[in-house]
């Protein structure tokens, strides 16, 4: 249960950073926090008490001893996509910094509407 609370707190901290922070790098960090929170939430949804990882490393293990492998496989995909998105976002931040010489989103006039 504590895992749900921790994952949702991570998501909320991430959303707070995206909404309130002015520094673009902190906004990207907030996005990665949301990402990790969702991943922890998915993995903890697949967890079964007293069961082991879904790997037949030992001949005595049967299918009944294992946790659900589907959330883990989905999270593996999600982590890789998260890395790709973060890298792309950071490179956009680098380009904006080169152009405007600031990371503060309030000082960038083109972002105002």
């Amino acid at each position, binding site marked *: *249960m504590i*895992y*749900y*609370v921790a994952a*949702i*707190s991570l*998501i*909320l901290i991430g*959303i*707070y950073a995206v*909404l*309130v922070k002015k520094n673009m790098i902190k906004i990207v960090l907030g996005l990665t926090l949301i990402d990790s929170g969702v991943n922890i*939430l998915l993995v*903890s*949804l*697949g*967890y*079964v*008490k007293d069961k082991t*990882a*879904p*790997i*037949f*490393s030992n001949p005595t293990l049967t*299918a009944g001893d*294992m*946790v*659900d*492998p*589907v959330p*883990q*496989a989905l999270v*593996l*995909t999600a*982590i*890789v*996509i998260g*890395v*790709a*998105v973060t*890298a*792309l976002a*950071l*490179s*956009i931040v*680098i*380009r904006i910094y*080169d152009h405007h010489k600031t990371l503060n989103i309030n000082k960038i006039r083109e972002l105002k509407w």
Partner: protein
Amino acid sequence: MRKAIAVLFLGFIGYYLLSTFLLVPFGVVRVLEGVGLKYLQDGLQQTGAANLVTSIVVNYRGFDTLGEVTVLFLAATGMGALLYSKRPTERARQNASVIVKTGARILFPLIIILGAYVFIHGHLTPGGGFQGGAIIASGFLLMFMSYRTYHVNHVILSRVESSAGSVFVIIGLLGLAYGSSFLANILPLGTANTLFSAGVIPLIYVAVGFKVGAELTALLDTMLQTVK
């Protein structure tokens, strides 16, 4: 004002998320209801891979993984397009100390071997192509951080990347030609829990490992070149 609105909004979202997820019991057997049970029971016989997460990622949802690799490739391409500059800025960072340099030189081949081990044994132990590729890229990151003049050849990296991606697609097309569907297993399964088992899964994971390693290394080098 802005912070107060944000906290109010977060409280709203947090309340509803928590009250939804507290309805889902934690740690109970829920596998029996879904597709997970089928994977758990038939996965070893059908794919021959001891690691069921690998058998799902590469075999049952292999097409999904091809899409994932494509997303990673697109992100690397996008970064290259965004950060490309005609004359790369020379890194003006300080040289690392002798201890760091010597340690990096000793550790670098070991890290590469660990990464190769992780992606070759992806169907037997925790790990796989993505994890092994990330470990290899971290070895290159260590070298970039310790040696100011350490450069990688981007031509070789992009050759490795594109040929590894082509191997993935070609294995899939061979499955279409000789098997039942795209990415179908066309090789004998072998005995489970040995290195040469699980048919095409190790081959695909080795290709993914090379691809991810080359991609992340190129990405790190591109990013570090823009930092003055």
